[in-house]
């Protein structure tokens, strides 16, 4: 990103590495998770839902690398297939909120005062409620399913993106090149699409990777409360909830999904923080 000519090349490399460090850890981890989720059928020896009453609650072994749960289902396989659900929910809901937030944010910044007030105050109102409470409330009404989770989580993060996009657009709107575009007679839509949006992608990208981490936490939390995809679908939050009851007897079935959730959220957060450090010009020096 930085093409600043440097006098001391070694110092420059060091700085760049330090700046990229978080991304260098976060990005490969995220990529690995997505790859593992996509390749899940190739990486497991057992179906995630196959019951095996003869192999209940087993410790890790050669046949079951992470052991089995109380139903005799392979934990490794359930973790991988659970990643599919979790990542699908996280990425789809973030995509949804990016689209919704960008739309509302730019409209608020570009349309008249009345529209702006209406949109932004509604968003402020939504931000007043803890998202998990709103999530529980809405999912209870809609009923638990993957599609509903995406809609709910996606909807809950729209205000964040609206605010980010709105404030960035307000700043960009006043810059000379937007003014010159307007002077040349460009339409509002054209200005938003070609002059403003390309210049506010950085904060959206940063916000999106951070929101993905939050969305994963949210999905796990709702699943933990029994509001995730209905069983027997493998879901990390539910795995934590179910194995938590047996914590005193065996810790491993609780350990795997908990660690997986933590690592996944951490890698998305590292990616987001790293991206912000790189992309935010104010943090460059």
């Amino acid at each position, binding site marked *: 990103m930085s093409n600043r000519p440097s006098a001391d090349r070694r110092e420059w490399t060091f700085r760049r590495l330090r700046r990229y460090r978080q991304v260098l850890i976060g990005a490969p981890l995220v990529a690995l998770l997505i790859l593992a989720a996509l390749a899940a059928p190739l990486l497991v020896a057992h179906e995630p839902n196959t*019951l095996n009453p003869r192999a209940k609650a087993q410790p890790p072994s050669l046949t079951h690398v992470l052991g089995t749960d109380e139903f005799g289902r392979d934990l490794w396989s359930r973790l991988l297939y659970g990643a599919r659900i979790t990542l699908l929910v996280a990425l789809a809901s973030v995509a949804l909120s990016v689209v919704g937030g960008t739309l509302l944010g730019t409209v608020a910044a570009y349309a008249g005062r009345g529209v702006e007030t209406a949109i932004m105050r509604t968003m402020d109102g939504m931000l007043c409620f803890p998202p998990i409470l709103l999530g529980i409330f809405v999912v209870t009404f809609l009923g638990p399913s993957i599609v509903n989770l995406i809609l709910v989580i996606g909807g809950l993060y729209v205000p964040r993106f609206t605010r980010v996009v709105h404030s960035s657009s307000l700043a960009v709107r006043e810059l000379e090149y937007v003014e010159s575009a307007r002077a040349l007679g460009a339409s509002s839509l054209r200005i938003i699409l070609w002059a403003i949006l390309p210049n506010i992608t950085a904060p959206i990208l940063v916000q999106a990777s951070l929101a993905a981490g939050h969305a994963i936490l949210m999905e796990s939390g709702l699943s933990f409360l029994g509001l995730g995809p209905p069983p027997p679908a493998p879901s990390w939050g539910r795995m934590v909830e179910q194995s938590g009851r047996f914590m005193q007897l065996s810790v491993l079935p609780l350990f795997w999904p908990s660690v997986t959730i933590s690592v996944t959220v951490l890698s998305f957060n590292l990616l987001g923080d790293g991206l912000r450090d790189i992309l935010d010009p104010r943090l460059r020096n």
Partner: protein
Amino acid sequence: MKTLKAIGPGTFGIALVLASLLIGPAPCPGGVKPGGTLRIAMYADATSLDPGGANDIPSQKAYNLLFDTLLAFDRGMQLTGHVATAWKASPDSKTWTFTIRPGITFHDGTALTAEDVAFSFQRILNAPEAASQKKSAIAMIESIEARGNEVIFRLKYSFAPFPGTTAQIQVVPKNLAKEVGNKSFASRPVGSGPFRFVEWIKDDHITLDRYDQYWLKRPHLDRVVLRPIPEGTVRAMSLMAGEVDIVDQVSSETLPRLRGVAGVELLTTAGLNYYWLGFRQYGPPYNNLKFRQMVYHAVDMDGAIKTIFPHGNAVRAYSAVPPLVWPNDEKFLKEHAFRQDTAKAKTLFEALIAEGVMKRDTKVLVSMANDPERIKLGEILVTNLKEIGVNAELKVTETGSYIDTAIKGTEPYIYSLFSVPRYLDPDAIFSWLFLSGPNGSTHGAKILGLTQLDPKINDAIEKARVISDEAERSRLYTALQRDVLIEKLYHIPAYHRTIVLGKRSVVQDLYPAPNDLFWLVTSFSNVWIDR
């Protein structure tokens, strides 16, 4: 081993056992040490201590220690005389006469009379529907008369199992209850039971003290404190830490932990309950026999029970009749129960599609109340159904609305419920589960979707409740049960939960009760603490 545990591990214990072997069997009655406080942890607090109002198990557990009933249960859950010394029926089983034991006094010193008994029943019959959950249980009573030391019940129809219903109506003092009113009586209940009321701090504790003049025997314990501890793990920990002496409902997760603890013992007994998977007959494919056969062949019930109850605190049910209730047709029903047979289930599935009863992708809904054990059962059933290619889906609903929508709604799905007979007679089971009539169906029958009169089922139930010949009644119930469970497959029997009581070894002479109450002072026991 038990003796060893009670004394404590180590050489000292072994030496003592050896010594007692040399001396001979330990003297039993002389060793009783009266006095002390018994601390009990219950899974929930009572809702009311007025026996005319509340009928939930935690309330029963508490007020059962304060009050007496006309008849009581012995260890084998057979009815015995209690406040009543004798009882007899008219030949048509429509008039029942109970003779009241003389010399019983309430905790306030007044004598217990036939008037009090009549009043205790009348009070429930007169109560508005919402105020007494026991009203429907004795709704067959037409009139009650107290005559000398006798109470005469006249019923609306012949009802052979009537004595059993009296075991759940507690005798309250007429004058006091009338004088102070129901609300005030509930806050300071006065009964004739082995313990008298001291205080109740809601959601914290109920304290009861020994009633010295208890007619049956003088209780050994000075005081009983009942504490609600809803979390199963916390209950187990409190027992292990010695903070309480008895805990009820030892959960499947904590059972193996408690098993190994010195100074703690577990008491188990077959529970008076019946859990089942049912098909709501409100629409296709659930009202199709082949569909029900397919589900029965698909589900691995033995595996499911091993998974849900890895430590054996439930047994597989083959019959709707829980252990201890007659008629026992377990052998026949077990022989004719369906075994898991995936190939057969698949064939039936194809046949159902060919016949147009369902499509290959028809959603089969398995709906469960929010109870961890039954959610697991649902999870296993859905997985089993998916294995044969059925598009099954599990839905979990909060328990209160689960039962409510099941009673009021007409949506077909596979459900799971449990029942505890209100009296130890097959009528209590079959009428609740299957009786539909011109005047409406019982809740159990409504949930099942039996809203139209089924003459075969109804005749059997109506006939069996009015005749008094037990052999003939047994024959009718057996035939009925084979019809609904084997021929029609309305239910797939799931399991009977075992009652597991945890106690510190110092607690003596305690027996687990199949009806899940606390038997502290009974005709066959009198709990004491060996401090």
